[in-house]
């Protein structure tokens, strides 16, 4: 397995979807290729950081919503759309 092939298989490897034979080849490559180990570590860190990027209270919630938007929503509701 080459670095290119390993890189293509990373998502399946992490989700447990890699066939057993490919998984063995994948891990065999990691045993001898520190560059791919570093790349894989970075990929895993990326997934972890990405998953938590928006699960906080400091997410960019606007303090105020434009009044025009609120008025537009409320006025659109009051229009006779029931017809």
């Amino acid at each position, binding site marked *: 397995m080459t*670095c290119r092939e390993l890189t293509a298989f990373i998502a399946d490897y992490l989700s447990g979807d890699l066939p057993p034979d490919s998984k063995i080849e994948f891990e065999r490559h990691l045993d*001898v290729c520190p560059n791919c180990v570093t790349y894989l570590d970075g990929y895993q860190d990326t997934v972890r950081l990405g998953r938590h990027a*928006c699960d906080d209270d400091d997410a960019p919630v606007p303090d105020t919503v434009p009044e025009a938007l609120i008025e537009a929503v409320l006025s659109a509701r009051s229009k006779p759309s029931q017809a």
Partner: protein
Amino acid sequence: MQSDTHDRPTGTLDETTLVAALKAGDDAAFETLVRTSSHRLLAVARRFARTEEDAQDIVQTAYMNAFRALEKFEGQSQLSTWLHRIVVNTALMKLRSQRTKPEESIETLLPTFKTDGHHAERFRDWSVPADALVQQAETRATVRACIAQLPEAYRSVLLLRDIEERSTRDVADALGLTPAAVKTRLHRARQALSTLLRRRYAADGVTAQDGVTSAGGAASNS
């Protein structure tokens, strides 16, 4: 988890009372709902939208969709969670309608390889203690800024799979893609995000790989 962010009460009224008032067509209840929930919905819409105008358009359409569907709201989830889902679905509809635009290239953010299949770059550990940094607002802001730099077709898949935690099938249906295409885009989006984060956290974290190590050479034959 996402639920932490949108399980907040929608207003000072208790939710059952608010929902009953909404279903009864109470104007004040609608205003309460919009004034107490719109800031969070706008924040979600901005993650998906390319422009502020699009984000506000998504929010407005989402409220209209929600108002029409209120009769079907049975209280099995929080009202805020229900609205969150509607705004995401509305954003997806808008993304699908805009898909005629040419896709931006992501190639410059993907790893490159030599003809023999080796990485063309040597990677260095970012030295990011991810678990610790996840707790830091600054880190989360940096990650969000990097996500915002991804081409739209990839950003939307990453947002839906890794942040909204939608299934591959769900995302495929929503975006009009095959499940295989969703998986490919997610992988590429993560790779591109990884490149952006590496550049951010290890400014010199990637070096040209002239004479990369013998370990890599051995691996190619394994």
